[in-house]
C-alpha cells in the first residue's frame, strides 16, 4: 500500500512535504544542495533538517542526519533512556524532498524509523530501491509523488 487511504491523510502528507520543501528552499538560499525534511511523531512535527554539507565541509551532513541529531539530543536531554529513544523513533515518520541516499537509508534503518515519504527518486545513489534497497519491509516509499523546488 503506497498511498494514504483517506483524503485527510493525503492532504496531511502534502502539508508535511511542503514543510520539507521549505527546508530545502532554506538550504538553496544558503548555497547548499536543496534537500530538506521533517520528522513527524503522532501528527506533530518534532524535528526538521536540511543539507549542511557546504557549510560544515562534511559531506555526510544530509538533511536526515541533521534532523535525527536534533531528536537524539533533545530526547536524551529530557532524560529518556536508549530504549525509550528507540521506541519513539519507531513511531516517527520522515518526509524528505528527495529519496534518501544509501547512507541515509541505512541510517534510517539503524534508528528504526517507521515510515519514509520522499518526493523525487534519486537515480544516482538512492537507497530505497533506486540503487540499493536498504529499507525494511516496514518502509513505505511514496514514489508516486514528485516535488520540485523552483
Amino acid at each position: 500500500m503506497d498511498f494514504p487511504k483517506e483524503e485527510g491523510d493525503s492532504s496531511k502528507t502534502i502539508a508535511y512535504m511542503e514543510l520539507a520543501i521549505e527546508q530545502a528552499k532554506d538550504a538553496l538560499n544558503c548555497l547548499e544542495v536543496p534537500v530538506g525534511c521533517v520528522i513527524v511523531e503522532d501528527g506533530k512535527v518534532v524535528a526538521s533538517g536540511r543539507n549542511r554539507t557546504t557549510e560544515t565541509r562534511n559531506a555526510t551532513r544530509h538533511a536526515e542526519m541533521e534532523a535525527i541529531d536534533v531528536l537524539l539530543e533533545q530526547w536524551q536531554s529530557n532524560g529518556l533512556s536508549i530504549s525509550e529513544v528507540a521506541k519513539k523513533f519507531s513511531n516517527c515518520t520522515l518526509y524528505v524532498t528527495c529519496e534518501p541516499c544509501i547512507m541515509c537509508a541505512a541510517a534510517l534503518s539503524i534508528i528504526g524509523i517507521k515510515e519514509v515519504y520522499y518526493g523525487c527518486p534519486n537515480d544516482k545513489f538512492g537507497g530505497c530501491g533506486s540503487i540499493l534497497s536498504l529499507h525494511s519491509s516496514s518502509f513505505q516509499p511514496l514514489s508516486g509523488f514528485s516535488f520540485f523546488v523552483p
Partner: protein
Amino acid sequence: MDAHRDTCQIVYIPDKPPVAPDQQPTVNVFASVIEPKHANTLIRRLNQIAPLENLRHVKRIQKKKQAEGGKTELSVILCLAIVDEKGLNGFPVDVQELVNAYNLSPFMAQVCKYAATSKEEWEEQCKLWPTSFHPPTYNIDGITGFSEEDAQSVLSFMKMAMKLAKSGDGSILNAAVIVDPSVQQIIASGQDQVFSWHASRTKASGGNIPVRQSESVRSYSDSNGAPAALPNGSLITPENLLVEASCLKPWQWSKKPSDISNPCYSHPLRHAVLVAIESSADRDRRLFPCSEDNEQNCLEPMESSCADSPAKRQKTSLEYVEGKHSSPQTEDSYPGAVRPYLCTGYDIYLVWEPCAMCAMALVHQRIRRIFYALPNPNAGALGSVHRLQGEKSLNHHYAVFRVFMPEVLDIVESGKAANGIC
C-alpha cells in the same frame, strides 16, 4: 615484529565478486557458418541491422581451422537469441532476409556476457567464442601491487587503527584513521561513539570531539608527521575483550542495558567512520577558515569543470598562506598546503569492513582508498553483503583493500571468545 613480516598481505577487493574463469556468465546468440567471400558484406550489414550493443568485447566473426584438409571456416554472430515467456523468439525480419538471401544455416552459440578482466578469464572466454581483451589500466595506486615502502606504511597506519580500537573499558570498537598518503600525515581519526556521544560538546566546540584519540595517535608520529614505530609490538591482548564494533551490529544499539554511571548520551549513528569524517571536516575548517565575504573564493567548486583548474587552486592556496603568516601555526598545518576538496586523495584505515551507512559516507567524502583488516560478514558493504565499490551509478569510486597482519588474529580470537562474532 619483523618475524611476522612474511604473513602480512594487502589484498585488493575488486568491484565485482570474483568468479572462477570457467563460470563466467554467458548469453545465447544465433550464429552461422558463412562463405569467406561474403564476410565483409555480411558483417557490415549485420552491424547495421543487429548491432551487439552490450557485447562490444565479443568478436562478430570466428575463424576455425577445419580438421580435415586444414581449410579455414568462418562463422558470424547473426543476433542475440532472445527467450521470452512465449519461448525462443525468431530472427528479426532483416536478419531473416539475410539468412534466406545467403542460404545460411543458423545455430545457437554461447558468448561471454562481460569483458574479461584477466588473461585467465579471456582464455576461458575464447573457448566459447572469441572476445577481445584489454588489460585494465588502473589509476589508483596499489591496485597493481605495493612497493615494500608503501606496504610498510600501510601496515603501520593499520596498527594505529588497531591501537585506537581498544576502548578504555577493555572492549574492542571499530576505529578509523584518515591519512594523506602524499605526505604520510594523519588527517583525522576516530573510534565508535555510539555509547559515548558528547552532544553538548559537539555544539559548543563546533563538533571538535575526538581530541583525546587524535592526540594518542599523534604521539606515535614524529615531527614530520611520518609514522614512527610503535613503542612495542603488543597492540591488543586477547584476554577479557568484548567486540563492540558498531558496524558489525548496527541495529543492536537499543539493546544495550542502560549504564547510569555513563555520563554520555548515545548516538546510534556515531560509527568510527562518521566520527573521523567529522573530525577531518573540523580540521579543514580550522586550517582553512573563510569569512562570509570570501567564502566564494575559498569554496572548491562543486562541479569538476572548475575544480581542477590549477590557477584557482594556486590562488586559494596563496591567499591562505599570506593571510595566515602572522598567526601561530597549528600542529596540523604544513606550509603551502592546498585546501583539498573534502577527503580527495586521502586514505582511511579501518579495523572492520564498514557497514552500508559508513561505506556510503566515504563515497560522499571522496576518500580515495579504504584499507580494512577484518571482514564484516553480516553487515559489511565492501564485499561481504553489499559491494558499494562496484556500484557504477555512484558519483565517486574508491579502491578497497583488505590488510592481513598477525596482530589482527588477536582481535579475531578475542571476538570469537567473547561473543561469537567474526
